[in-house]
C-alpha cells in the first residue's frame, strides 16, 4: 500500500485530479509516507485521534506513555474492547465466556476511544465509520494533524448485515 501511494504521487495522479483511496490506511502508515506524498488520499476508519473531545482526551493519555505518538485504530480498538469486556464482567459478576459474551452483546458500548457502539449477535463490534482525506502540508498545523473529515457512515450501514454473513451464531 505504501509503495502504491508513493507511485501514485510520483506519477502525479492526485495532481492530475484523480482520486486515490486506500480504505485500511492507518496513521502509522501516513506518518512515514509524509503529507507531501500522501496528501489527497482517501481512507475510511472508525477512529481518528482528532475526531472529537473524547478521542482527543483518550489520545492524550496514550501519547503521554508513547513518546507523543497518537493511537492507531487497532490500538484504540484494544482499549474499547477490553473496557467493554470488563464492563460485562462487572455486569455479570462472572469471568465465564458464555455469560460475559451475552452481556457484551446486551450492554451498549461507549467509551472515549471508540465512542458509541454495539456488539452484534455474530460477535462483530460495530460503530460509525468515517471517510477522511489526508491533508496537504499547508493544511496541517502539527505533526499528527493529518486528516480532514469528509463524511460519516452510521454504524448500522457501515458493516455487512448479519443476514448476509452466514454466521452460525445467528442461525
Amino acid at each position: 500500500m505504501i509503495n502504491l501511494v508513493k507511485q501514485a504521487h510520483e506519477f502525479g495522479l492526485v495532481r492530475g485530479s484523480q482520486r486515490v483511496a486506500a480504505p485500511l490506511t492507518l496513521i502509522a502508515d501516513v506518518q512515514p509516507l509524509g503529507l507531501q506524498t500522501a496528501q489527497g488520499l482517501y481512507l475510511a476508519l472508525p477512529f481518528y485521534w482528532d475526531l472529537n473531545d473524547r478521542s482527543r482526551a483518550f489520545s492524550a493519555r496514550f501519547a503521554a506513555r508513547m513518546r507523543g505518538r497518537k493511537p492507531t485504530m487497532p490500538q484504540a480498538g484494544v482499549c474499547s474492547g477490553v473496557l467493554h469486556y470488563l464492563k460485562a464482567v462487572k455486569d455479570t459478576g462472572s469471568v465465564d465466556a458464555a455469560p460475559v459474551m451475552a452481556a457484551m452483546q446486551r450492554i451498549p458500548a461507549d467509551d472515549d476511544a471508540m465512542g458509541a457502539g454495539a456488539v452484534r449477535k455474530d460477535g462483530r463490534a460495530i460503530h460509525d465509520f468515517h471517510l477522511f482525506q489526508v491533508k496537504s502540508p499547508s493544511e496541517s498545523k502539527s505533526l499528527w494533524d493529518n486528516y480532514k473529515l469528509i463524511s460519516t457512515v452510521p454504524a448500522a450501514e457501515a458493516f455487512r448485515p448479519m443476514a448476509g454473513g452466514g454466521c452460525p451464531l445467528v442461525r
Partner: protein
Amino acid sequence: MNAGNADATGQGSVVDAQLAAEDAAAFLPGVKIEVISADHQNSPDIAPAIAREWRTNKAVNVVADVPFSSAGLAVSQAVRDAPRTMPRST
C-alpha cells in the same frame, strides 16, 4: 515487539489495554486486573502456543488485539474450548 505490525499495534496496544484496566478500577473496585503481553512474531504457530500457555498456566481471561489474521484465527481456535478465555482480534 517488532516487524510490520509494531507501529499499528505492538506496545501501543499494550498501553491501551492498561488504560482500559485503569478505567475499570472505577467500577470494579478491589479486583486486580493484570495486563500481560507477548510478541507472537506474526506466526500462526507461535501465537496459539502463547495463548495455550496463558490459559493453562496464567489463568488469562481475555486475549486482546492479536494482529495478523492467520495468527489471530489460530488463537481463536486455541482458546475455543476454554470456558474462561475469550479471544478478541482486531
